[in-house]
Structure formats: structure tokens, C-alpha cells
């Protein structure tokens, strides 16, 4: 399913944001954001509640009106048709979708193929293949016949993840993808993301699991609607920034070859 030879040149920014602003109601949520996300990398956005992480992801997904400019592979997002954009950028929303409870797992994953289908035509061979590939990757294939409403929270999350993968987009935006996942499936998710990135996909995820976020190629620390710092996982300055946006309630410590975020009780 994944093209081993990425269609876009490496070195080009998959996503670039210039002077981005988003206002929800009367309230400015994001202001003057600048960001460049290289292709074929996994970036994790961390920050406290209300920092504007989900809003940034929604703006990138094209589901929120924004001021400023967003570029996909050096092309303005506004110049894309909705369908063309939907093929390039897939977005996993935060939370569950109770209104899809009556659809089968297979139907839900197949919805990821909507950007590839014509208005009236049925699913093509490629659509079925992509759906199966996505469901197998998230280990949801055995329940493909079951209604979404009969699954547990973590199982539902894996189906929604399969829906995202089925789009087969170059850029995958995931808002809290680990919600309800148990530790082994969180590790599976990590391996899945590394596999996707190795195949040239660009992954951007909002994570509250700071320890897992510290496995990302690049971290984006947000607070109060602005980017505080971007950097790699081994950067000690970045670690201090993360601790500070979380009011020093967590401490980042080295453990083995990686890093862990520990709660600070005093």
C-alpha cells in the first residue's frame, strides 16, 4: 500500500505555516504561528490543555478557517480542491464518534476512501485493498463485521486509526491517537508511526503522553496559542521548556537510551 518511493522530493517541507492565526468565536486561539515540518518525519506536539494544539491540527487539516498561509509541499492549502486536499492530508479527530456506532468496522475504515471515490460509484479494488491493509495494520481486521458500537474504547480507537490510514495520505495528522489504547497497543502505534515515516509519510501527532512523545523525531512545544520551542528529543533545553509549560509538575529524566516524564510530587 505504501509507496516505497515517495512521490515528493525529500528536503521539501511537507507542511509550512506562516503567520497563522485562528479565532474561535471572539477568542484568538492561535496567533502569529510559524512552523516548518519536513517530509518523512514524525513531529509530536505537546503542551498543556488549551494551548491550541488541536486547533493547529484542525487548521492544517483544512477544517477550520484561518488567517495567514499554510503550504502543502510548497503549494498554498487554499489552492487545493477539497478532494485533492483530502487525499494529501488525513486527520484523526480527538475523541469518539458515537453517531457511527451502527456502522460496521469495515464500513468505518472504508470511509477513509471517500476522497478517492466518485460521487455515485462503488468502492474500487484499490479501495478494498487499502481498507484491508489499514485494518490489518491496526489489528482490527478480525472484527470487520462487527458494529462499531459493540467495541471497547480502545478497539474503537484502532478502527478510527485504520480509517485514517485507509486514506493513504502523505501527511497524517493525529489528535491524541493513544486515547484508550492499552500499553502494548501504544507501543504498536509507535512502531506503526516509525514504519509510516520510514516509507516517506509525514506524521504530526498531538500527544499528552510526554514519555512517548519523546520518541518523536521532532517535538513542538506549545503553550497559550504559540509555539514555545521546537527541537529534537535529546535537546536538554527542550526538556526544560516542556517542564516549564507543564508548570514543573513533571520532570524529564534519562532512562536507558530514552527519556521519561515523571510526575513531580513535591
Amino acid at each position, binding site marked *: 500500500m505504501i509507496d516505497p518511493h515517495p512521490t515528493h522530493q525529500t528536503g521539501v517541507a511537507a507542511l509550512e505555516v506562516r503567520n497563522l492565526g485562528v479565532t474561535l468565536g471572539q477568542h484568538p486561539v492561535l496567533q502569529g504561528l510559524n512552523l516548518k515540518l519536513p517530509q518523512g518525519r514524525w513531529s509530536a506536539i505537546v503542551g498543556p490543555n488549551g494551548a491550541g494544539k488541536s486547533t493547529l491540527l484542525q487548521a492544517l487539516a483544512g*477544517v477550520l478557517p484561518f488567517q495567514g498561509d499554510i503550504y502543502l509541499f510548497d503549494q498554498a492549502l487554499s489552492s487545493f480542491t477539497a478532494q485533492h486536499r483530502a487525499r494529501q492530508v488525513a486527520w484523526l479527530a480527538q475523541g469518539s464518534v458515537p453517531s*457511527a456506532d451502527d456502522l460496521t468496522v469495515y464500513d468505518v475504515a472504508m470511509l477513509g476512501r471517500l476522497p478517492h471515490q466518485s460521487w455515485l460509484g462503488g468502492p474500487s479494488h484499490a479501495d478494498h485493498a487499502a481498507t484491508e491493509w489499514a485494518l490489518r495494520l491496526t489489528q482490527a481486521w478480525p472484527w470487520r463485521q462487527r458494529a462499531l458500537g459493540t467495541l471497547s474504547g480502545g478497539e474503537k480507537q484502532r478502527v478510527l486509526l485504520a480509517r485514517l490510514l485507509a486514506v493513504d495520505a502523505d501527511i497524517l495528522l493525529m489528535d491524541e491517537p493513544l486515547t484508550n489504547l492499552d500499553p502494548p497497543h501504544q507501543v504498536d502505534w509507535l512502531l506503526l508511526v516509525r514504519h509510516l515515516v520510514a516509507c516517506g509519510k509525514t506524521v504530526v501527532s498531538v500527544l499528552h503522553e510526554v514519555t512517548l512523545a519523546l520518541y518523536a523525531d521532532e517535538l513542538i512545544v506549545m503553550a497559550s496559542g504559540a509555539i514555545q520551542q521546537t527541537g529534537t528529543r535529546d535537546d536538554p533545553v527542550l526538556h526544560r521548556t516542556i517542564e516549564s509549560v507543564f508548570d514543573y509538575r513533571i520532570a524529564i529524566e534519562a532512562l536507558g537510551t530514552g527519556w521519561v516524564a515523571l510526575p513531580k510530587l513535591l
Partner: protein
Amino acid sequence: MNASLPDTHFSQNSRALCSAWLLALLCVVVLIAGLCVGSAGVEPLWRLLADPIAAQIIWDIRAPRTLGALLAGALLGLAGAIAQGLFRNPLADPFLLGSASGASAAVALALAGFGISPLATQWLLRLGLTAAAFMGAVLAVFLTLSLARGVQHTLRLLLAGVVVGVVLGAFTSFLSLTHPDILQVMQAFMLGSTGFVGWSACGIMGIVWLACSAAGRGLSKALDGLALGEATAQSLGLPLRSLRAASIATLALATGTAVAQTGLIAFVGLAAPHLVRALVKTSHAWLLPLASLMGAALLSLADLLARGLLAPQELPVGVLTALLGGGYLMWLMHRRGPTHD
């Protein structure tokens, strides 16, 4: 990766197909039974057809009204399924959204203003009445939606629907009281009855049902996408604005057409999609036609009961569906509990 052809959907799809055949069979049985039941009680069809007068009665009265009950039920079931899919709210229904009361107010207005009778048999008059009912239904839905400020809040939506229904109902009553000549016809109409349905009404409902089913077929993929939430649907490239407009137009056309021919028949649109979902969990491509069949079976069964229960007198079928459907709604709300609004 295994690129085998999909065995995937076999069980749900075959369940859906089975349900479709069973419901279609039920409709045919009810249709035949409907030809046999009349004010004279039940008689076997072959004896009736042997008698030229009885055959005339069957052809001119029983056949169109039985077929009419089927078609009106199919329209209401379809409208209900589209409404529930569009608003992602299982209590959305042509009645609770106010579209039915809007349609009947428009019919009253047409009756009082232009003297178009619900008993009219000419195609043009029927068409005029249907067009008026469609306009009324669209206006009422917009009124309800603007009162409820969107559809996210179930309680507000239901309240807005009730308010719009009451106000438009009062307007309809006022019209019938100030025009005594239409009072009797209007009363029967408000209670809901298949008694007015002739062949022209059947023709119009049949054509509109075909058109709305085709529209529903085109909308079904998008309605599935909407089940993931509006933002996700938008991220998948679905044109939400035109999708909403097309869905509301389709459900208003289906409701308005049914109401213009049969009057106010409550709860078929609500119950039909629910019953289908209890039978089979499936996408809108199946749900919409199944809800149509279920609505057809429900209304024609209710019509049969309404004609047979107190024969030779007959109960307006709307009274019966209101009783049955109201009970069903109460059970549904009880089961959903108070936390889901």
C-alpha cells in the same frame, strides 16, 4: 498484503438483503390483504373480482388507497432515515422537526386560499397541493433549525420542533375555523387518512419516491461520512453545505408529498429507521431503502388495522400511528435515559 476480493461484508450485507426481501414480501401480503378488507368486512379477492361492482370498488377505492398507504409510508420512512443521518440524532423525524406540520399548514393555506381540495383527483391540482406542502415543509424545517440554533442539542431541537408544530398547528386550525367550508375536510386531513388517495395521488407519490430514493442513493456515502462528525467529514473532502441543502430538500420533498396526499401521519418516519437498525447494522446505502420498505410495511399494516378494527366504521390511520408511535417514542426515550441529550 493480501489483495483478495472482499469476502468482508458477506454477513451484514446478506442480512440486509434478507431483511429487504422479507419486508418486500410483507408489503406484497399487506397490499393483497388491503384489497380484501373494506367496510363490508373481509372477503377473498377472487370472489370480489368475480363481481363487477366489487371489482370496481377494488380498482377505484381500495387499490389506490392501499398502494397509497405503502407509498406514503415509504416516503416517510425514507425522510426519517435521511433526517436521522443528517442530524446524527436518532430522534430526528419529519414530525419532530416540524416539517409535517409545515406541510399541513401549507395544505390548509392552499385549501383556504385557492380551493384546492385534498380530494382532488386531477393531476395538476394534486401537483399544486404537493408543491405547496413541499414549500411548507422546507420553511418549517428552517424555522425549527434556526430556533434550535443547530442540531447538536437534542432537547433544544425537540423543543423547537414542538414549538413550531404547535404554532403551525394553531395556524392550520385558525384557517379551518375561519373557512367553515374546508373545516370537515381539514379535520379528516389533520387526523391523517388514506381515504383521499386516488390514482393520481399514487402516481405523484410513486414518482417522488423514485426521485427521493435516487437522491438518497447519491447522499448515502456522504451520510455515512457525516456519522464520523462534521469536521471529519469535511477533512474527507465532503462538501457539507451542499450536502445539507440536498438532504433537507430531499427529506422535505418526501415528507411534503406524503403529507399532501394523506395528511398528518405521525411517527412512521421515526420508527421505521429504528426498527431497521434493530434488524441490521449497516451503512446508509442499505439503511435508506430498508427504512423505505419498513415505513411502507408499517403504514400499510396500520392502515389495514385502522380499516378493519371497527369495520364498517374506520379509524383515521394517523390516530393509530400516533398511538403506536407515541408509545414507541416513550419507550425509546425511557431506554435512552435522561443523560443523552
